[in-house]
């Protein structure tokens, strides 16, 4: 299935691009996608994973407009999903 990833700073530098079009196996989960990106882009590891190897709190994700909560990492992606990766920040 085809998944598009839009990564904002600082993740886009680590992934080499802010816009990725990926071919992924059917049934891949959100967490699976992130771990695959870590495999492929070692510079992304420090951003994506915390000291315990879990998905870092500061890697925020939305999948086709839905926020990915703590219990949604196992949700399977579907063909055509758009995944947005961004760091949660506030300011003005």
């Amino acid at each position, binding site marked *: 299935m085809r998944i598009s990833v*839009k990564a*904002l*700073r*600082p993740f886009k530098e680590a992934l080499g691009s802010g816009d990725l079009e990926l071919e992924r196996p059917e049934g891949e989960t959100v967490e699976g996608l992130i771990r695959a990106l870590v495999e492929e882009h070692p510079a992304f590891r420090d*951003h994506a994973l915390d000291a315990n190897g879990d*998905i*870092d*709190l*500061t*890697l*925020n*994700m*939305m999948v*086709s*407009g839905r*926020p*990915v*909560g*703590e219990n949604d*990492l196992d949700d399977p992606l579907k063909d055509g999903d758009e995944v*947005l990766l*961004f*760091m*949660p*920040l*506030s*300011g*003005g």
Partner: protein
Amino acid sequence: MLKRKTAVVDLTEGTVKDITVSDELRRAYYGGRGLNMHYLLNMLTPGADPLGPKNVLIFGTGFLTGILAPNSGRFNISAKSPESQVVGDSNCGGFFAPELKYAGYERVIITGKAPEPSYIYIEDGTVEIRSADGYWGLDTQEVQKAFKRDLGMVESAVCGVAGEKLVRYACVRNGVKNAAGRSGMGAVMGSKNLKAMVARGTGGIEIADPEGLLRYTEELKDYIMSSKITPIIGSVGTPLLYEVSNAFGAIRTKNSQLNQWSSNLDAAEIDKHVEKMIACADCIVHCRHRNMQGGEGPEYTALGLVGANIGLDNADEVIRMNNLCNDLGLDISSSGTYMAWATELYEKGLITKEDTGGMELEFGNFEQYSELLRMINDREGFGDVLAEGRHAAATLNDPEGDYLITVKGLPQSDPHDVRYMKAFALGIATSSRGADHLRSRPTLEIFFKLPAEVKEKIYGAKVNSDPTSFDSKEIPVHFSDNIFATIDCMGLCKFICHGFNSPHYLSYPHFVGLINRATGWEVTEEELQTVGPRVIDTERIINIREGLVKSWDTLPKKYFDDPMPLGQAKGHHIDREEFAAALDRYYELRGWKPDGMVQEERIEELEGIA
């Protein structure tokens, strides 16, 4: 310990008097915004003309300012706002606040009106009212340079010509860009014939446990620097937020007719114009850009409000708009909001060339908006109308302000379109000074993966994890209100504090650690947690005296009526019934009456603090 003097300056009489501040009062409100509000409650005549001599203008430094606590160089300026319907209060960084403390003063309260243009000079324990001859009529940069030229290594907080001419959203500036931007404090200065506060100090501040404080400060610095967010704030700054909001479809665009705009204003584009990152006093983060166009910034607010909101998509032009607002001393949030408002009214035919003095207002026209800013500053032609801000609504054929993005008469401070994030919406609706993210933005709402049990521990109650739901969102708003008010009393920058950004930044235990080492007091976390609600209630009482009723705690009409048209946030809007129910729950949590009024016993208690 940690104590500096408080002066009351009567500009009409030309007198300066130091007043005593009890430790009981200090422990009730600490400093900054909190103590300012205490004095406003006690000194402001309800119903006073905000641009008249009866308004009370207060410059108050943070409790922890000047002692090397991380990011602690902040102060608040407070008065009745000439822009909004309610209390005016604005927090500012830069270098003025520590200098004022070293000059021997932590707070200066100003009443009356000087018979001629003046400035107040504070040096090593003395306060003088001096003639502003030679300084009046200069913009915010020229006048600060002139003070340095004439007086040496001083720090000043100044208004520009916009303040002198009573533009209702004129701000107060220290340095190139640091602003007490919100709610028209520059106009209050102008109304008092006060061009500047100028400070020079060589005195130290007495600390109970200097070595312990230094060690603890080092620990806190390490803690702050260990966050993954800190280096991003320090290298990219708030422009990062533009691309986050924009990618998601939550950037106020063309007076909130749209919610998504050009990627030309993304942080990577801004980077091309950045000379280097700089910082406020005692800051370890340095989130500020010095730009190649000769100014500082832009922040996210500028990219949104003098960028997307007025239809500009060229980074160089937006930076120039930012620099112009800074030099003139105009609040960027309000300037961008009012110019976009007028442009939509023009596009819709509600106003015509006859109203605008021949200007054909159109989104995206850089030259036109630059000229309009200058005209606002000089109160010239149509600029004179827009200088009145929302007070011009009837003149501009929008008598109910249906097209205005304001709450309680104050334009929304930040460019985030809050129709998706319901807690953000409740936050700007209930904020004491009007629509403002710095009062109660519950940012932890966007830490989507924050475990429910961690959230429950932070908030003391379960909160619905769906950001688009109003269910239980009074809880994060109430929590954020309280901690942000406490931070503003301490004089700390919200960027390094819990709740505004990472949950792993400074919070009550850290504030207590700093306070006790600095003062020798034995403040507990529990005691400190009473400060925020006290400040919020004090502000509420001031607002009630100025006529606040429940219907003022609301949102711009568009946020209710118009669903967001674009992006991932498409279709979201504010449901009136859900909003009303959340507002009722918020009042209950705060201990207010169902009509939003403060309980009589609480009023008596707060009026009794001395």
